[in-house]
C-alpha cells in the first residue's frame, strides 16, 4: 500500500525504538560482549573467542541442569496443557457461573511468584503445613528439604497450581469462539462427545493452544523464583534448573564470561524450541495428504 508520506509519523514510532533498544538490544549486546572476552578489570580485557562457549558446553554440572530443565518443562507441558483443557471443558458456558468461575480460576495468576514460593513452603512443611502434615500423617514421609523427589513434587505442584489457570483461560476463550452451528452439525451427524472433542473442539483450539504451549514452555524453561525460594536449588542440586545455575555462576562465582556465553546458549535454546513447537503445531492437520 502506498500510504500518504508524513515524516512526523517517525515521532510515533520513536518510543518503541527507544524501549526495544534499552530493554533488549543493548543488554543483549553487552552479554555478547562479555561472552567473547575475559575481563579482569576496567580497561584490562582479553579477547578469548569461543573459549567460554567451549568451557560452558563441557561443564558437567551445566549439562545436568540442562537435562533437569528439559524434564521439568516437558512435565509441565504434559500436565498443564491437558489439565487446562479439561478444566476449560467443564467450565460453564453461560449464566452467572461464567464470571464466578473465571474469577476463581484467575486467582492464582494474580499472586506474585516469590509469594507463591513462600505459600507453598509453609503449606508443605512437615511440621506446620497443612499439606505436609496430612501427607506425613498418611505415613508417606514427605519432606521437600530432604528428599529430591519431594522437592520436585513440590515445585511441580506450585507450577501447576500457579499456571494451569492460564492454560484453562486460553482454552476456554478458544472454546467459546466455536460457533454453535458446529455443535449442532455434530449432533446431527451423530457424533459422540469424544468425537466432538477430537474433531471440533481440539482443532478449533489449535491457535490458543499453540500460544499456551509457547508461553508455558518459555516460562517454565526460565523458572527461577519458585525453586530458589523453596530450597535454593536443593536438596543437593536436585532442583538446580538452568537459571539457578546461571545465577550461581554469574553472581555466586562472578564468572561473567562463562555466564554470558551460557546466557546466549540458553537464549538460543529457548528460541529454537519455541520455533519448533510453533512449526509443529501449525502444521498439525493442515495441508493435503501427500
Amino acid at each position, binding site marked *: 500500500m502506498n500510504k500518504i508520506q508524513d515524516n512526523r509519523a517517525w515521532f510515533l514510532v520513536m518510543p518503541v525504538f527507544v524501549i526495544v533498544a534499552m530493554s533488549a538490544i543493548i543488554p543483549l549486546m553487552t552479554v555478547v560482549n562479555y561472552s567473547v572476552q575475559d575481563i579482569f578489570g576496567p580497561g584490562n580485557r582479553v579477547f578469548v573467542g569461543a573459549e567460554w562457549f567451549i568451557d560452558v558446553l563441557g561443564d558437567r554440572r551445566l549439562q545436568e541442569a540442562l537435562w533437569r530443565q528439559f524434564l521439568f518443562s516437558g512435565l509441565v507441558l504434559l500436565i498443564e496443557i491437558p489439565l487446562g483443557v479439561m478444566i476449560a471443558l467443564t467450565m460453564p458456558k453461560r449464566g452467572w457461573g461464567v464470571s464466578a468461575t473465571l474469577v476463581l480460576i484467575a486467582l492464582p495468576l494474580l499472586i506474585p511468584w516469590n509469594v507463591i514460593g513462600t505459600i507453598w513452603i509453609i503449606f508443605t512443611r512437615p511440621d506446620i503445613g497443612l499439606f505436609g502434615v496430612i501427607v506425613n500423617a498418611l505415613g508417606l514421609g514427605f519432606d521437600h528439604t530432604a528428599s529430591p523427589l519431594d522437592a520436585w513434587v513440590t515445585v511441580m505442584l506450585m507450577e501447576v497450581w500457579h499456571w494451569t489457570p492460564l492454560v484453562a483461560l486460553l482454552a476456554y476463550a478458544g472454546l467459546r469462539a466455536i*460457533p454453535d*452451528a*458446529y455443535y*449442532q*452439525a455434530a*449432533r*446431527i*451427524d*451423530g*457424533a*459422540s462427545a469424544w*468425537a466432538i472433542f477430537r*474433531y*471440533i473442539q481440539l*482443532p*478449533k483450539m489449535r491457535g490458543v493452544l499453540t500460544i499456551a504451549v509457547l508461553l508455558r514452555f518459555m516460562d517454565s524453561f526460565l523458572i527461577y523464583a519458585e525453586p530458589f525460594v523453596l530450597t535454593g536449588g536443593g536438596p543437593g542440586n536436585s532442583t538446580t534448573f538452568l537459571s539457578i545455575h546461571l545465577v550461581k555462576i554469574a553472581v555466586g562465582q562472578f564468572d561473567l564470561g562463562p555466564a554470558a556465553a551460557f546466557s546466549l546458549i540458553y537464549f538460543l535454546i529457548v528460541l529454537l524450541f519455541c520455533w519448533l513447537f510453533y512449526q509443529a503445531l501449525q502444521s*498439525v*492437520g*493442515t*495441508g*493435503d*495428504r501427500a
Partner: protein
Amino acid sequence: MAHVRLDGIAHSYSGGAAEADWALKTLDHDWRDGGAYALLGPSGCGKTTLLNVISGLIIPTRGRILFDGKDVTALPTEARNIAQVFQFPVIYDTMTVYDNLAFPLRNRGFPGPEIDRLVRQVAGMLDLADDIGRRARNLSADAKQKISLGRGLVRPDVAAILFDEPLTVIDPHMKWKLRRKLKEIHEQYRLTLVYVTHDQNEALTFADTIVVMHEGRILQVGSPQALFERPQHTFVGYFIGSPGMNLIDCRLDGETARIGEAAIPLAGALKGAAGTAPSGALRLGIRPEFLTLHDAQGPGRVEVAIRTVEDLGNYRIVTALLGDTALKIKLDEEAPIPADRAWLAFPPGRTLLYHDDRLIEASP
C-alpha cells in the same frame, strides 16, 4: 424420507405469554414427503426458529411435531434422522473430504464397504470426487458447503434436509450453479427439503412450495406463480417481486373501487365478494407489471401525472401519481411513455382487493 407435520406449534423464547413474546404464533402445516419447500421472510420473522423446531434444536413451547405420524416433539436432533446445512460451512477441519462425508456413517456404525460405496456415490453426485483425498479446510466456500450437504445426503435413512440460508457466503457467480445442483438432487432423490432464506430469488428458484412468514405467522403457502399472481396478504405482495405490489387505500362504490375521485372497475367475480365485505381498511393491489400506460382516455382508465422514469436497460420503472398516491409501473424498454398527459388502466383480472391486509377471494 418422511412427511413432516406441525400441529399447533408455538414458541416463546422468554416464556412470556404476551403476544409479542411469541416468536412463533400457533402454526399448523404439512410438509409433504419429497417436497421442496422454502421458508421465506425478512429477518426476525421466525423462520429460523421454525427450522430449529423441525430439527429438534428447539423444543416448542406448545404443539406437536410428527414425522410420518410419529410424535417426535421430545426427541433430540440425533434421533430424528434429519440433516441440516448451515449459513456458514461446517466442516471438520482436520479431516479429508472423504472422512467428512464418512463421519455420520461411522458414528452410526455402518460397515466399512457400505460407507465406502455411499461416500463415493455422494461425492460423485456433488462433483467432489476429484477432491476426495484433500483436506476439507483447503477447499473453497462452495465446495465446503457441498460437503455439509453431502454429510446429510450420505445417510440412507435421512428423512429431511434443512437449509439455513446456505448460500450467504458463496460468490455470486457460483450461486446459480449450487442452486442448480440442489434442484438436480431434489429431482433425483425426492427428499423432503426445507430451505430458509430472506432472498426471494433463492426461495422461488429452489422450491415448489414457498411458505411466507412474517412476525411469527405463516401468511401464505403456495407456488412461486401463486405468490406472484395472487398474494394472499399485502405483505406477500410487497415482499415478492421488485418492485413490490402497488397497494392503494380505496373504498367501494357499487361495482367500482374508488381511489380519491378515480373509479377503478373490478372483475366480475370480485364485485359480489367485495359487496359482502365487512367494514375495515380496504386496499387495492396490483403488480407494477400488470398496469398499462396509455396516451389517451378510455373506458376504465384514470388520469395520472408521471413523476419519474427510471431506465433499467431491459425495462423502465415509471412512477406516476394518482391523486396523492405514487404508483410504480414496469414497462418494456420499447413501450412508449406518454409525454405529458397519461392514463393508467387496471386490468380487472389482475386487480386484487385486500380487506385488513387479507385477499378478498373472488367466488367464480
